[in-house]
């Protein structure tokens, strides 16, 4: 398959691995920020091939995983409202709220919940059901938000007033900074998310490189993309440099996509946001602006987001912070599996725990990977 097979070429992979080994002159610790990177590294078998001096930890970049239990509770509340349809991304479907109840449970009890591929499908559902409210739980980072913004703009242009978004949209840099402020994290480099970077631009990581002395490399999602990024990172670390480099030039520019950012800024304004495992982070979220309040489920339905607790025993917070690896969690692989996830990192196929469970063959282990 064109544009895919070239980037999974075994000979090129072997060559790049050789180069990476040569460039790695000391052990280093990398955070792969994005859940898609976590999954790609496991699924391609790359994890098994990397030099042992490189330690990979997964960051907070799986949008489903960082959705707080209280937001899931709010989605469940909305699902129970009369004459209401929820249009949701599929991987949100099995995420437990604070009582262990999921949208899948709510649907089985009769709530109208449709799994959709995009917010536009939700808008279409609203058009087809004018007597009902259609609510789209907005989750995701800079990659997803422009599409949601465009959908809200389309809803206004087409005068569809029964479509709403419940925004829990998040931005990538504030939680990274919050994590990096903790010296216990001890990472040398950031594998920067390719898709988010296509919007925010590689330049966005400049403050991270400078303030935290980090080698920041933007990476694509194929095995050779990731290897190329790790080679650049290993060289920076060997040479004592801390810079932003772009190893995903076929999708990411230094400046990013200004038009998409402008569209997001039209609809959304920065807001404080609660993150699963990380708590409330100032300015890390996006709320729908007053001018578009008609499309804002939170203000239009006057919903109060209930306070919630993390599931007892769940260490997703520690895992999202990169402090432990999934097998160190007592629930991993025993009570918490992809079939009956307790924490969010097990729910999404891109979640750290799900990737470890599905691709590494690990079960629970007493060996914590701590600092």
């Amino acid at each position, binding site marked *: *398959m064109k544009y*895919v097979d070239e980037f*999974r*070429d*075994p000979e090129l*992979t*072997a060559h790049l691995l050789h180069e990476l080994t040569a460039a790695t002159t000391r052990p280093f610790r990398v955070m792969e920020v994005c859940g*898609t990177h976590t999954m790609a590294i*496991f*699924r*391609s*078998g*790359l*994890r*098994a*091939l*990397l030099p*042992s001096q490189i330690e990979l930890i997964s960051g907070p970049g799986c*949008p*489903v995983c960082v959705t707080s239990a209280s937001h899931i509770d709010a989605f469940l509340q909305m699902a129970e409202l009369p004459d209401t349809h929820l249009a949701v*991304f*599929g*991987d*949100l*479907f*099995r995420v437990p709220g604070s009582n262990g109840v999921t949208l899948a449970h709510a649907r089985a009890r009769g709530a109208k919940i449709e*799994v*959709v*591929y995009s917010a536009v499908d939700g808008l279409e559902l609203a058009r087809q059901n004018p007597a009902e409210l259609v609510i789209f739980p907005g*989750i*995701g980072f800079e*990659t*997803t938000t422009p599409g949601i913004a465009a959908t809200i703009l389309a809803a206004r242009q087409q005068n569809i007033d029964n479509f709403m978004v419940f925004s829990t949209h998040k931005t990538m840099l504030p939680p990274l900074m919050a994590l990096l402020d903790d010296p216990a994290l001890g990472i040398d480099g950031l594998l920067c998310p390719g*898709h988010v970077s296509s919007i925010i631009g590689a330049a966005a990581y400049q403050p991270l490189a400078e303030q935290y002395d980090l080698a920041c490399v933007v990476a694509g999602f194929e*095995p050779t993309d990731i290897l190329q990024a790790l080679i650049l990172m290993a060289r920076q670390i060997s040479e004592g440099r801390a810079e932003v480099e772009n190893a995903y030039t076929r999708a990411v520019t230094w400046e990013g996509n200004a038009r998409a950012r402008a569209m997001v800024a039209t609809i959304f304004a920065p807001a404080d946001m609660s993150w699963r495992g990380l708590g409330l982070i100032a300015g890390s979220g996006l709320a729908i602006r007053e001018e578009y309040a008609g499309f804002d489920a939170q203000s239009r339905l006057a919903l109060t987001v209930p306070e919630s607790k993390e599931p007892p025993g769940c260490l997703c917070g520690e895992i999202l912070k990169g402090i432990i*690896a999934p*097998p160190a969690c007592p629930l991993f692989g025993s009570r918490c*599996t*992809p*079939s009956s996830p307790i924490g969010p990192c097990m729910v*999404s*196929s*891109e979640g750290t725990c799900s990737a470890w*469970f*599905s*691709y*590494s*063959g*690990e*079960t*629970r*282990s007493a*060996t914590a*990977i701590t600092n």
Partner: protein
Amino acid sequence: MAPTTAETILLDHGSGGLASQQLISGLFLKYLGNKVLSALEDSAVMDNQPGRLAFTTDSYVVDPIFFPGGDIGTLAVHGTINDLAMRGARPLCLSLGLILEEGLALSDLERVIISIRDASESCGVPIVTGDTKVVPVGKADKIFINTSGIGLVADNVEISTSRAQAGDKIILSGSMGDHGITIMTRRAGIALSGDLRSDSMALHTMVQLLLTGLPPASLHTLRDPTRGGVATCLCEIAGSSGLMLEIEEDCIPVRAEVRAACEILGLDPLYLANEGKCLALVAPDSADQALALMQACPEGAEAAIIGTVIAGAAPAIPGSHGIRPSLAVTAGRVILKTTIGGTRVITPLHGAPLPRIC
């Protein structure tokens, strides 16, 4: 245009009265009639047959009911025939149970029944008994079908997942994921270019060729990777045999259209349903012969050896910080050697495959 009342299924059609009889004689017997079925007795009586009986049942609830490469009718015939074939049985006859939703267009029902007739005739496996119920609108989704099947297993044939042996070659009879991706894209209304079509197909003829063509007892295991896909099926074989299976990503046939659709939708073809494929585990000495026999059949033209059964404990996966998996999960493990030369484990499907956010 919406069908008129005369052209749709009414609750009356399931009443057991005149309307039911009209449906039976005017539609079912018209297309499916044979000596046994047309007698309309309360049960079919089959002549005494030599060998052991294989008996299986399956229900079919697919949405949409018509899709490229087949429909719910072809699935209902092929699926049950394949379940018999996977134990080495020669399929003898099928039952046909229909649950119809009030309001189903008669033309749609006729189309399904014609498909069932065509599939049954081309497979040489008659429908010998049947039943129809009609439920009110909304209590079923257009049409649900149950077929049960009876087959005969020759005395010297022993095919079972538990008979997998170390050294066996694992053959997949053709490309994987065709059915699953076709249904998922149709259901989501996603129009992708390329010829995505279900692989709905009966495998019993190919299986009989293997049974007669291969040395006795060299064909150990047959399994059709339907829901849960090749991955889940391999895990089941590993689980019931207690052995380790190692497969090579590069050797697994996947059509380019299916791969592309999976890349776009974020799905893994290893977990997508197949409706006309089987996994065959064959003694190493007979593997090439089995492959040639399969490739000589249209249903196995793209068959490929995708891996090997190996005995012993699974090695710790490199890159997992040296943590060895616990003993409980060491047996019955499926390992995939990836295209780029890495390794990872394969686990069974958890929940239904769902579209993802990114």
